[in-house]
């Protein structure tokens, strides 16, 4: 059915307008409306998935195209493939969970929910758009609500963290805007349509110009990912953001960057990316190792998870860079597909696992201990058995335990990347070792050891928290045990993208 993706995209905005009209005292109504809207949107996205033909996951489906700014040739062009559809589902699911988790937010609940709905549309728009300007507008739209979410509901240093987040990402997005314009002015016939531009590859003949445009896109996406050395906004933003904000930031907003590399840079500027893949790979490896080392040194649980994100996104970028480096070498094509599959899987795995981890940090910090110091706890498993189980599961998934979602992803990345960048892959693998070490150490410090009497009165998970975490836990296990359908869809999409590259 055409119009399905528009439905997915605009339901949150419709809900937002409804909430704008709601009186601010009706807190309960506001929450229920927000939940209903996000649930409806999730169901709409599931419906889209049902309408999606997985046997042709490498092609764009459910497409919609209508003129938006005819005088510029900008169109309203939406479609999904095996790359964007899982990310859309991840987004709609996590937004529902965020609303459930945020039920107890009492500070300005009306504005809070409005901003989350706006954020949802912004994120979905980035994944759905196939026109550069549509893409860019949604890219920026997702920025503003997050600024307010950090800036109003954040921790003590929220003012600083919010403006830092905004400034960093704006630098990147403006650089990307320049790159988009450069690509546009060299296309013939001139167009902003991504699919047409992927086929045209306007800058393929001019490597210098291609590299210039590459830097524009690179800045835009690398800051969002964030890649070393652009990651410094991330710990601040994550630590200061309210729990639901951290969740969406980690689970979805970071993916906008890696998605950009796979969706846009790889097929649009293959030569330039090929020429600079070594640099991206080196930075990714540094991020993987450095992120893990810094995470190990953290005593703030939220910062620890934030730096582990730097490390995990490093793996993703290593996989993407490896695929770019393999361009033009048929012998390495298989390896490139495997690495790229792993990178995309890792985007999803990181979304699910780190989303869960930030929820879990929030559970203990927001409503129970009001501290996130890793060393402040000890022996929590006696008091909070369910909480302990879920946290351990998520941490083990994050460190890549076989049978859980993270393993499939990391294994594919390293399997593919090793054939292309053996040295760097070996270095990056030390990141895995460090990750295992610090997660196990963290589990030990929080849950085992002598019980800290201070926490004797803490209650275990309540129903709402359990509902927030159950779907994510189920996904971690289900996809970890039986990844084949998801991998199949992703594989088809990656083949499609690599076909565009040649």
């Amino acid at each position, binding site marked *: 059915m055409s119009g399905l993706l528009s439905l997915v995209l605009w339901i949150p905005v419709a809900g937002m307008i409804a909430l704008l009209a709601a009186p601010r005292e009706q807190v309960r109504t506001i929450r229920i409306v927000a939940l209903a809207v996000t649930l409806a949107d999730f169901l709409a996205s599931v419906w889209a998935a049902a309408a999606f033909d997985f046997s042709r996951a490498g092609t764009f489906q459910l497409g919609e195209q209508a003129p*938006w*700014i*005819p*005088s*510029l040739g900008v169109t309203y062009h939406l479609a999904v493939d095996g790359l964007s559809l899982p990310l859309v589902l991840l987004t709609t699911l996590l937004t529902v969970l965020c609303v459930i988790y945020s039920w107890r937010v009492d500070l300005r609940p009306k504005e809070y929910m409005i901003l989350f709905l706006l954020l949802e549309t912004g994120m979905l728009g980035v994944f759905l758009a196939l026109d550069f300007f549509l893409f*860019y*507008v949604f890219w*920026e*739209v997702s*920025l*503003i609500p997050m*600024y*307010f979410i950090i*800036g*109003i509901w954040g921790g003590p240093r*929220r*003012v600083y963290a*919010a*403006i830092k987040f*905004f*400034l960093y990402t*704006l*630098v990147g997005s*403006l*650089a990307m*805007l*320049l790159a988009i*314009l*450069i690509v*546009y*002015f060299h296309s013939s016939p001139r167009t902003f349509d991504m699919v047409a531009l992927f086929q045209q590859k306007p800058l393929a003949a001019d490597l210098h110009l291609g590299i210039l445009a590459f830097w524009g896109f690179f800045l835009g996406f690398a800051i969002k990912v964030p890649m070393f050395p652009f990651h410094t906004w991330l710990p601040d933003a994550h630590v200061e953001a309210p729990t639901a904000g951290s969740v969406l930031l980690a689970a979805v907003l970071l993916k906008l960057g890696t998605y950009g590399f796979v969706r846009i840079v790889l097929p649009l500027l293959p030569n330039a990316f090929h020429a600079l893949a070594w640099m991206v790979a080196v930075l990714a490896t540094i991020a993987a190792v450095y992120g893990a080392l810094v995470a190990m040194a953290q005593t703030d649980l939220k910062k620890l998870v934030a730096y582990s994100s730097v490390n995990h996104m490093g793996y993703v970028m290593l996989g993407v860079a490896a695929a770019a480096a393999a361009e033009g070498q048929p012998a390495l094509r298989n390896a490139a597909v495997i690495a790229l599959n792993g990178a995309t899987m890792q985007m999803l795995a990181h979304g699910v696992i780190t989303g869960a981890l930030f929820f879990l940090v929030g559970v203990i910090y927001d409503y129970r201990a009001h501290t996130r110091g890793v060393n402040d706890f000890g022996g929590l498993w006696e008091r909070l058995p369910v909480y302990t189980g879920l946290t351990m599961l998520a941490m083990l998934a994050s460190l890549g335990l076989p049978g859980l979602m993270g393993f499939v992803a990391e294994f594919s990345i390293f399997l593919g990347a090793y054939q292309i960048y053996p040295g760097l892959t070996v270095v990056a693998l030390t990141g895995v070792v460090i990750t295992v070490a610090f997660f196990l150490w963290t589990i030990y410090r929080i849950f085992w050891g002598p019980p800290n009497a201070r926490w004797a009165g803490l209650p275990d998970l309540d129903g709402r928290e359990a509902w927030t975490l159950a779907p994510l836990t189920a996904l971690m296990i289900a996809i970890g045990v039986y990844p084949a359908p998801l991998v199949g869809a992703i594989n088809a999409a990656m083949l499609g993208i690599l076909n565009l590259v040649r």
Partner: protein
Amino acid sequence: MDLRPLLPEVTIGLLALGLLVLDLVVTPEDKRLVGWTAIAGLAVALLPSAVVVGGGHRYLAIYDTYAVDPFAGFFKIVAIVSAILVIAAAMEFFRDHPTAHEGDIYVLIVFMVLGLAAMAAAADLIVLFLAIEWVSLISYVLAGSLKADRKSSEAGVKYFFYGAAASAVMLYGFTYLYGAAGSTNIYMLGGRLATAQPAFLVVAVVLILAGFGFKISAVPFHQWTPDVYEGAPTPIVAFLSVASKAAGFAALVRVLYVALPPGAWVGIVAALAAISMTLGNLLALSQTNIKRMLAYSSIAHAGYMLIGVVAVSAVPGVLGSGMSALLFYLPAYVFTNVGAFTVAIAVARATGTDAIAGYAGLSRRSPFAATAMGAFMLALTGIPPTALFWGKVFLFGAAIQTGFLWLAIVGILNTVVSLYYYVGVIRAMWQMPLPADAAPAAGAPAVTAPIETPLLRGVLAVTTAGALLPGFFPDTLVRLAQAASLLLKP
């Protein structure tokens, strides 16, 4: 002589004369009647201006001294719309700043619109100079119109001295052109200056730019801006910041594009653009007064708009032509900036201060005004989906297309800098609590009454729509800008 092409000017002139008489007969309490009549009359004058834009005719009238083309018609509309919005906001402003001259101020604004129209259409250096002086003299009076307020008087005097000097230098520059070409007609100059000594032309351009730079408040002719913006009555500042600037750009574009070969001025104007953006934004960072901050922001925006002047392109498409980009940017800037000043008027009414700190907690007190102000600030930064976002895209696109990639990069770096101070206002409105004296005392009713009056609310609704709607649906304004970029060429 055929007066039909001058219908907008005739309408506005008659309106101004009529208002003079009306002002004499109404009692001091009813001066708003003058304001409302002015608004109604200006709205009528919109019609013939729109006809000029839509007609697409291009010719010279009144012994070849006055151009009739869509370009001029477009700027007449810009001036009229700004005046309507500003007069509406001024009627609220003068409730708190009672002055015996309230009626005169409305009359002067209408007279100034006449001068602005003439600036956009002048095809002869003498007519142009007269138009600029006409506008300037009225501006000085308006800036100093709160006679009891020392800062306002200071603003008027300062503005006058700077303006007089700038005009003199510009007139001196005009004599160079006359000396080289033997004519004051801009369209005659075009052919004759092509063979003139380049160095000679550069001197003339530098001198002329002093006058235009003053009007559009570009660096290094900007020093008057912060003081005048701070001291002058807020609605007058709003008017100067959009209408006067727009007309300055209109005259600048006509003189540079028609009379002078690009080689003589492109480099200089590009440098001015870069310096204006950079200096304006850097100086805005440390401002604590909203009007001074908007003054430096206005300097920076003059820099962005100068990119549009620099990017001369033979291609008429909106993406790639600096002129179309400029013409898209200006109306967007009018709505956004007038809107921001309108919020400043509303806040000053409630708090009695123009300090940005006075915006603390505005989102609680007056969500509508705060949301509108937030939108204006993001728009001035150039965040989508606002009209000014597209304006910036078009300006930067034109720069790239005409080989000024470096200027686009400077513009982008400046945009990032500007975010910091624009967000400063948003931070105050949303992230700072209401100040203690405004917060409700125990038992007292909460301060929830919106700070804006119905009229200000109406102005805000219009300006917000003008600042946002073209962001969602830019097509109409794009087509208008394209139609209006039909400048009469020799």
